[in-house]
């Protein structure tokens, strides 16, 4: 890293630096900001207004905190998926990773007797979190191996991984919930910092870190180049496969971390933990302006996508929609949200 930049036409370049070329003032930069990334902000405001009209409970801090608390695990999956989608891939297995990673960690940590779930007791209790994260990393890395080394179809490979890991989860737990959650999990899932659940803070920090990496790190920026045109990225010297592999591994890691928060919050791992989430993950990402073809979208947009979905569900619950109709409405909401965001941003979704 030289820290200096010298194009070959250095004379013209230096000359150009001294004079300030017109048309590049901060104001003109403002014109080129993609407003579509913010298109969901008014939608969220409208939803809050509707929520306020529907129920006076809506605007209480308890309710709003519970909305963001419930968004936190989903949003971590969306964060992982958003990064993967930006570099032009997809990983369906995230929804199984959120369940299997904590299960594997607990299986290795919990004692073989004493609790309702017989673990192996191979490793000490403090290693539960590192083990869980490692398991997620491993799933992502295997996905990367399948897609990038063996060059198999990523959609089907991760679909297979989704099913396989769900089966492994049920096999290990014998289909039962595990309630002997390690203390470290419980702490992250349950404790509050400054009156707001720790999980929410952690999510915000991770989104901020992710957003900063995409904006200001060269490997972060490389994701857009890879997703936008992998051949051009390769011609520019970006190690396309290596970066993609790293992103897939990070996706698994984030899913595992979401698993820790979720398990800690509810104090148990159900056999169905994460089941069916992947649909919401994709929906939130696309509603938030991430292109399924890669190369386009921001993490801020993805976050607004998650919040929009969760707010609609919350408003409906407060409105007293019968539970039996939830599934129907869930699907309908996603389609409506998709249509709204399509026209709010004015961009084709693909």
């Amino acid at each position, binding site marked *: *890293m*030289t*820290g*200096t*930049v*010298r*194009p*070959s*036409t250095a004379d*013209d*370049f*230096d*000359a*150009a*630096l001294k004079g300030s*070329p017109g*048309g*590049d003032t901060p104001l*003109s*930069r403002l014109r*080129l900001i993609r407003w579509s990334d913010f298109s969901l902000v008014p939608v969220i405001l409208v939803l809050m207004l509707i929520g306020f009209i529907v129920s006076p409970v809506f605007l209480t801090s308890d309710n709003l905190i519970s909305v963001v608390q419930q968004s936190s695990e989903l949003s971590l999956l969306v964060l992982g998926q958003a990064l993967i989608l930006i570099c032009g891939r997809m990983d369906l297995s995230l929804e199984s990773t959120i369940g299997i990673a904590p299960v594997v960690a607990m299986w290795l940590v919990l004692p073989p007797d004493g609790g309702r779930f017989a673990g192996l007791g191979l490793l000490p209790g403090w290693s539960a979190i590192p083990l869980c994260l490692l398991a997620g990393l491993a799933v992502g890395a295997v996905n990367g191996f399948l897609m990038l080394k063996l060059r198999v179809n990523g959609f089907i490979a991760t679909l297979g991984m989704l099913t396989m890991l769900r089966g492994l989860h049920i096999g290990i737990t014998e289909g039962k919930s595990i309630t002997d959650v390690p203390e470290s999990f419980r702490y992250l899932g349950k404790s509050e910092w400054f009156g707001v659940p720790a999980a929410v803070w952690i999510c915000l920090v991770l989104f901020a870190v992710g957003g900063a990496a995409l*904006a*200001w*790190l*060269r*490997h972060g*920026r*490389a994701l*857009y*180049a890879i997703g*936008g*045109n992998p*051949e*051009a*990225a*390769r*011609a*520019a*010297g*970006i*190690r396309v496969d290596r970066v993609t592999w790293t992103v897939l591994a990070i996706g698994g890691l984030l899913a595992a971390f979401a698993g820790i928060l979720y398990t800690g919050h509810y104090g148990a791992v159900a056999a169905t933990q994460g089941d069916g989430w992947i649909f919401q993950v994709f929906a939130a990402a696309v509603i938030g302006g991430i292109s399924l073809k890669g*190369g*386009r979208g921001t993490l801020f947009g993805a976050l607004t996508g998650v919040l929009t979905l969760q707010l609609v569900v919350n408003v409906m619950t407060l409105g007293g929609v019968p539970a039996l109709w939830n599934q129907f409405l869930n699907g309908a909401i996603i389609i409506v949200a998709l249509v709204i965001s399509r026209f709010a941003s004015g961009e084709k979704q693909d």
Partner: protein
Amino acid sequence: MDAQAPPPAVQAEGVVKRFGPTVALDGVKLTVRPGESHALVGRNGAGKSTLVGVLTGLHRADAGTVTFGGEPAPAFGDTAAWQSKVACVYQKSMVVPDLTVAENLFLNRFDENARRISWGKLRRRAEQLLAAYGVQVDPNTRARDLAVEQRQFVEIARALSFGARLIVLDEPTAQLDARGIARLFEKLRELQSRGVAFLFISHHLQEVYELCTAVTVYRDARHVLTAPVDEVAKEDLVAAMTGEKAAGATAWHAAGGTAPDPSAEPVLSTERLSLAGRFEPLDLQVRPGEVLGLAGAAASGNTAVGEVLAGMRKAGGGTVRVRGRAVRAGSVPDALAAGIGYIPEDRHDQGLVPERSVAENATLTVADQLGPWGTVLPSRTREFARGMIASLDIKTQGPEQPVSGLSGGNQQKVVVARALARDPSVLVAVRPTAGVDVKSKDSLLGVVRRVADAGNAAVVVSDELDDLRVCDRVLALFHGRVVAAFDSGWTDGELVAAMEGVGERE
């Protein structure tokens, strides 16, 4: 028209075709008589493929008339009617590879009267059809297992079974070896004797003389010449294709006489560099201040050389050295580190990330120099991009504008900016002026010249004569071999002749 002479198989008069502001065909004419093999030649962009599109009903002509056998051409969009008049055998296969020959022959017209497909009957009909034209292919073979010329025979037989009496052959020999070509020509002559007319499009003038009876030359969307083949000498044909351009020397033209010092250490050298099926072992030496041209048509292997130098492809053998430093084969990052800047052939394929900004595209190769600890500082990126925008005169609203909003010439300048960003010792430019206007062309080639004048080396890979004018030395490639070498004093004719492989198979 007197009663004896049959009407021409096809006659086109005053055909005009525009694509937006570009005139692809400017009042051209063409006449092919029954039983004639008519060659249509011209340089890239002369309008050959557009004419084929008009003749086969793919494009609607803006003006002019087309008649087949004296009758006016079918209405635009009436595919069945066009099929009964004319068919084109493209370079790209138009058969379904996983279906059998019989199915391909009768695709979507298995049997109008029967409800279900009778496979036995289909096979027999296919056998009859193939036998009628003397094509020895088993109708049960899958199309993908056929040799290239067999596949072409099947396509010709299919076209003839529709009733077409004019077959357009678009570069039919590009993927054939010498024996395949011989078999193809034999079959074509046989069909010709039965009254089938061929329009033969080829870059290989030698083949035109072997097969065809008449030749038509287009240049820059205009008709230049039509004559019997035996009445045109090869030199005249080449002259007609290139035109007698009174090319005034511009600033970036290679200055003849000031040959680079042969004793100087070469900046770029290759030793036995090869890639199986693309080009044969190649020893190159490019000295400081020198621009080397690698001329060659589409299948000559010259683009592959460029891609190997840039690390986009892994060489089959041999080494590349930049100022004595060996470059790891097939590694773009190592090529960049060694000082090789790369302007890829197609800016849409390998050059640009269309949705990202000018600044981002221009700094893709220098992302490691724009801030400490792997960061990319937006201020430095903008600053760098502004320098590039000014020095290359890129017309843009600002560094933040998505590169897809720029004109072709300015997009290409962004690609060049990316290649120059690392201050390369060697600039490898593949068709650097493809699809850009004259003014951008001047400034792009000027950049290539400046890079060399600063004591570096440049390699220009192209089949465009204007691109090659910047070179101090030009090597012409044909079928992966260097067939000729020129100093800067070459004439258009001799270089085109070398690229087209004239004299190759004599």
